[in-house]
Each structure stands twice: as C-alpha cells, then as structure tokens.
C-alpha cells in the first residue's frame, strides 16, 4: 500500500508524462463519434497534409528553441521562398530543380545571416529575427512591385511573364503515393515525416544534438567543454531557415501560384506547435517528437471542428486554449514535480 502522498506524486508524474497524448486520443475518439467521415484513412491523411507545412516550419523553430534561441522569421522565409520559387519559374523561366535549389539556398542564407546577427553582433534573437521578418516581407514584394506572380502577368518592363509552374514542381505539392489505398499519401506529408524523423534523430540521438541542448541550458559551460557554441547556434538558425524554405516550396507547389502573403499565421501556428510539443511526454523542453505531435494535435482539432461546422473564430479560441493548457502542463505541473524531489 502506497502512502496517499506518494500516490498523488505518481498520479502527477503520470499526468505530466501521458496527459497530453491521452488528450489527443480522447479528441480523436470524440471527433470519430461526433463527425461522420472523420475516422477513415483519407481523413487521417488530410489532417497530416494540413499540418505538413506548419509542421515542417515548427521543426525548424524547435532546433532554434533547443539552443535557447527563437526564430520569428520562419513565416516570412516560407512566403519568400514561395515567391522566389514562383519568380524563378514564371519570370526567369527556370526548371523546377533550379527553383527548389534557389529556395533552399535562400533559406540557408537567411539562417546564416540570422545566426551571425545573433552570435557576432550580439543582437537578442527575438529582435534579430523580428527585423529579418520585416525585411523579408518587404523584400519578397520588391521584384514584382507588390504583385502576385502568375503566368501572363505584366512585368515592370511591359513584357508579360511567359514561364509557368513546371509539372515536376507541382508534383511536390500534389502527387500522392499509393499506400494500401491508391493515391493516398501526398508528397508534403512524406517530406514532413522524413524531416521530423531526421530532426528527431539529430536532436535526440547524436552528439551534435546533445551539445545543442547543452548550449540551450548553459552556453558558458558548453563552451568550456570545447564545443564551438557560435557555430552550433548558427547551424540551428540555418536548419530553421532551410526547413522554412522547404515549407515555402511545398506551399508554392500546393497553391500553384505566387501569392503575396506575410506568413504570420504560418509563424504563429508553427510556434504554437513547437510550444505544445514541450508538454508531450513531460519533456518540458523543445523536442522534435513533441513538435510533430503538437502540430498533429492542432491539425486534428481544426479538421474536426471544421467538420462540425464550427466558425473560424472559435477555432482560434480553441487553438489558444490548447496552447495555454500545454504550457500549464509544462511549466506549472513540472515545477510542482521539481522541488518535492529536492528540499
């Protein structure tokens, strides 16, 4: 017979560890009963597809959170990459692989600049990436004077744009692989899962990942064991930039058009997913698995609520509520668990 105190402590530990995943399961069960058509493989894939792009961005944010930083520019990087992809294909008439390469390069470059601003110029991360966000939102509109990009659009010199989104590029956003059911799994979902797996392995199971966590917890101590702290920080921002650029490419391939957008909602949704991820399995710190689960959680919630005809503002409310609850799991419950083990 355990003492009541010990039982309470065990219950608390269980709630911190599995509470969020149980909530996720409960949510799925509820929607399966309440919304006809929710529980089938296609629906599951749709949920995955709707979170694939924010999920990819969130994984990038997660790496910057791990080194104790933050990247506010990812939304803008994604939409810049969308515009760059459209511009290089429609205006410059380049093939798909050039467009993708340019986008990835742009993402890496933005990450490098973010990292240098933070590490070398010692600008606080939030401020540096906020500046970069505004810069990119403006920059992506300069080549087209603020116009969206589409085949046949009039260019600044009076010519019309003759290029178009190539089929190979659109394949990235629209092709579906067969999995049991024909044409089931879209490419963005596969890319999302691959990136999630790669970042999960990298952060959790390599020495580089471990050193990045150490930097996030105590950068000075990590420098004193000989780790190149500045280089790891810059690397984290470059990973974040590249994943955001990948997100932008997939967005462009899905939309098939170079629409002007600030990407602020992409930023907010992906940050929310990464923060919700803190609560998964009681990690209380940024982690790739949690981030993927966080993105999935938001996706399931929105899909289910839309199927139940809930208006958009209730969806924002619920998203906010989920975030607050997740943060409560992370910070309040974990802090209650903490001191009882010391004294």
């Amino acid at each position: 017979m355990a003492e009541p105190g010990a039982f309470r402590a065990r219950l608390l530990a269980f709630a911190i560890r599995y509470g969020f995943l149980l909530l996720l399961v409960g949510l799925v069960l509820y929607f399966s009963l309440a919304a006809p058509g929710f529980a089938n493989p296609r629906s599951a894939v749709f949920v995955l597809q709707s979170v694939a792009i924010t999920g990819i961005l969130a994984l990038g944010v997660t790496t910057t959170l791990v080194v104790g930083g933050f990247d506010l520019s990812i939304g803008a990087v994604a939409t810049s990459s969308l515009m760059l992809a459209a511009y290089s294909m429609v205006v410059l008439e380049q093939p798909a692989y050039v467009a993708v390469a340019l986008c990835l390069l742009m993402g890496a470059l933005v990450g490098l600049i973010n990292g240098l601003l933070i590490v070398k110029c010692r600008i606080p991360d939030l401020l540096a990436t906020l500046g970069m966000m505004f810069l990119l939102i403006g920059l992506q509109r300069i080549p087209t004077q603020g116009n969206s990009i589409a085949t046949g659009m009039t260019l600044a010199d009076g010519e019309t744009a003759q290029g178009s989104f190539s089929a190979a590029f659109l394949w990235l956003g629209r092709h579906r692989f067969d999995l049991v059911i024909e044409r089931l799994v879209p490419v963005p979902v596969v890319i999302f899962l691959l990136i999630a797996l790669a970042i999960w392995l990298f952060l959790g199971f390599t020495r580089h990942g471990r050193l990045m966590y150490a930097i996030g917890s105590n950068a000075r101590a990590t420098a004193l064991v000989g780790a190149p702290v500045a280089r790891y920080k810059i690397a984290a921002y470059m990973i974040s930039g590249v994943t955001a650029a990948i997100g932008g490419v997939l967005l462009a391939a899905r939309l098939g058009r170079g629409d002007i957008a600030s990407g602020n909602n992409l930023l907010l949704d992906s940050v929310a997913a990464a923060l919700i991820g803190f609560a998964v399995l009681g990690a209380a710190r940024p982690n790739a698995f949690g981030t993927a689960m966080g993105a999935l959680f938001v996706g399931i919630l929105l899909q289910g609520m839309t199927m139940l005809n809930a208006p958009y503002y209730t969806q924002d409310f619920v998203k906010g509520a989920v975030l607050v609850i997740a943060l409560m799991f992370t910070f309040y419950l974990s802090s209650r668990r903490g001191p009882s083990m010391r004294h």
Partner: protein
Amino acid sequence: MLALHGLYKAFGANQVLRGVDLTIDAGEVVVLMGANGAGKSTLVKVLSGYHVADDGVMTLAGNAYHPVDARDAIRQGIVTVHQAIDDGVIPDLSVADNLLLDRFASRDHGLWVSARTLRREARQVAEAMGMTLDLDARVAELSVADRQLIGIARALAHSPRLLILDEPTSSLSAAEAERLFNLLDRLREQGVAILYISHRMTDIRRLADRIVCLRDGRVSGMFDQKPLDLPGAVQAMLGQTLEATAIQPVAPGPAVLELHDIVLAPGSKPVSFAVGDGEVVALTGLLGSGMEALVAMLFGQRPLSQGSLRLDGRDYAPNTVSEALARGVFLAAKDRSVNGVVADFDIADNMTLPFLKAFSTGGLLRRSRQRQAATQMIERLGIVCQSPQDAIGTLSGGNQQKVMIGRWLQAPCRLLILDEPFQGVDIGARHDIGRQIRATAKGRATLVCVSEIDEAIEIADRIIVLHEGCIAGEQYNQDIDLGVLAAQAAGHG
C-alpha cells in the same frame, strides 16, 4: 532573541527536521554547521517564512513567532541573505536602485522616485557598509563579490533583529571577507543576533561565538567553550572522525607543464615554475593574485602577453578551448552553476559532455555506454544518487560538484586544472574529491587553484602562494606553517 523548540518539518515521506532546539541571543554570532542534506536550508527556510513548520514552538524576543510568508518574516525582523547571489539582486538595475529596492516594495513608500533622494539614501547605505562602488553602475556589470555585498547591504536596510547569512563568503576574496567580518562585528555590538552558515574554517575561527552542528535534522553538537573545538564540531557534524589527511608528498616525475616568464598582471614581475608528472600543485592567493589570469591562459581563453608555456617539452600557446583540449589540458571551472552544470541534463549527460564523440558510433550517441561510464564514476567518487539518469538538479551541491570533477576524470589528460573545486562543498564531499584527485594523479600534472589555505593543505604535494601576480611563497606540503602562508597570501611574506 530567537528560541526554537522541537521543530519538525517533512516533505512528503521525507522527514527533514526531527526536533530542532536552538537559541540565539542578541549580540551573538552562532555558526550553523551541517553536511549537505542535514536540514540547514530547510531550517533557514522555516525561519525566513518560506516554509511552515509541521510542529514546534518559535519565539522571537519573547513573543510567539509564526511568519505567514517571507515578507512577514522580514517585517518581524528576521532577514536572510541567501546563498544564490543572484536571488538577492536585480541585475538590470543600478546599484542605487538595488540598495533601496526593498523600500520601493514597501507600501509606506510614495509613488514617485526622486533621483536625488535616492542617491543620498543609497550613499548612506553604501557608506555604512564601507562600500566604494559607483552607485550608477548596472549590477550586471559588477563582480560576483560586489553583487554579494549588495545583497547583504539590502538585507541590512531592513534593520534586522536576527540576520541569517548562508555561505556569504563563498565568492568573496579574503580582503572582501574581512570587510564583511568587520561589518558583522559592528552589528554584533549593536545587539543584532546573527546565524551564520559556513564550512570555511577561517570564517568560523574569526567570527563564531558558538557553533551548532546539525545532523539528520537534529542538533548533534554545541560548542561554546573558547577556544572553540573545531575538530569536535566537524566530528559532530559528520557523525564520524575523519582520518587525518596527512599527505605524503610524491616526488614529481619529469616536468609536464613549464611556465617561463609569464606576466600575470600588468606591471608585475614575470612568473616561472613547473609542475611534474604525478604531482599535485596547489595555487593559492586572494582575489587579484593572478590565479584567474593564469587559468584563462592555460585554457586558451586569454592570450599570453609575455613569456612562454611548454607542455611535455613542446611549445604550448592555445587560442581556443578546443586547442587546449586537443593538447590534453582539462579544466574543471569554478562557479559550477554558471560554468559547469547543464541544468536540463541528467548525471550521465553532464558527466560525458566533453567526450560525446567517444560515446557515439556512426554519428549516433550510445546511451548505454554513457550510463556505464557514469555509473563507474559515481562509484569512484561516492556520488549519492538513485541512478545516472537522475536530473542533476536533484543532487545536493556537493554531489553536483563531484559530477563536475568526474566529468574531467572520464579521459586521461596531461594537465588537469581544478579551479576552486571545493566551492560550496561540505567537508565529507571535499575529502572524497581530494582522495580521488590524489589517487588518479599519476600520469598527469594537476594544478588546483583554491583561495582557502586549509583546502590547499588537504590536497597538494606542493603549495605556491601568489600575491598580485607574483610568487610570494612556495612550500612542500610537510610541516607547514599556516601563519606564514596566510601572511604571504596577504602580501606580508
């Protein structure tokens, strides 16, 4: 002034205080000694209103004392200076703001803050303490010692009846500590009761009117006969006698580290000495002795201004930490919470942090090998924990320090530098660490930097005293005259 009777406190199943009886008179300095986990911190937290005792009676100046919270305790005249320095200061505010912060927080203070009055009052507080700081400086830019003094000054601003100090000298130089002791002398004359928690023998010798030892949540000894029986107090605190750590100085092997004409402070005489294979050399000196500069030079954090270093007979001039590591120079840095501990990590990750490459195959970390290595080190150093997967934050200070030392014993090296390895560590843990350092000393040179001469004597084959960048004295660790060493360190050699 304060009397406690039969104080009990438990956290869950963990009974921490088991009936503490204690009195402190006005104008008396009571030193509280206890190993880590004896209940000192809990006792302090009960007195300062952070915890409520489960059972027991407390009276303050004859009246029942039951603080509701920390503010209530302060209002009733019990003021505490906590060990964690940065809990006591606001780094982004100026010195003057910090000194008067508690007055802003009081409801009696008006809405407006007048810069002139503020400076005047802050200057009064500073002068009363003999502080000569720029009142407009931001606290974040000050040294640890200055921050510590500001924390104490803030406590005094409350005009306490009982002042509780938790290891206040752990980051002060001897000169600064002496300033603090003078201040405490004055308070004692003014009739303030002082409860002083420390392991440092110099502090205890200098200040204590009475020693109270705490063990397993009970008072295990009380010493008030002058001269105070320090060995007896240590025994009462640990519950056992420590075997005398008489050191048999080892004859050093060939020189591993050689210093040639190194200048440690601008304008001071160049310094030369060597440390041999298998030898443990203690460097000791006050703040500003040049020890800090030397450690930084040896570990690639500060360029050599003059002179040269040789390691194993080859030139050694590291520019970065990784270059130092590549030549086999390891440093267990001081101030472990800032420079060593990765708070989010468990013991195994903390211990293997510098050598993760050796613990991975094909890019992936091998957790089992990390755990195995950590388990061995836990046994060797006698670290008290459940498993290598315990979060480091759950360990006591002494055990955390053992993890930090164990980190650098994971791999063989040419030169091991230990900077203040006994900071905030109780006597038991200190002996464990010292024994392990000496046991593994063969095959490398070991340099230990300590500001306490007692600590140097416990671990070193040879002791070098630095004063203002110069060697003020050097002795083999046999038949040492403590007084001579102390005088040399203070510059009177």
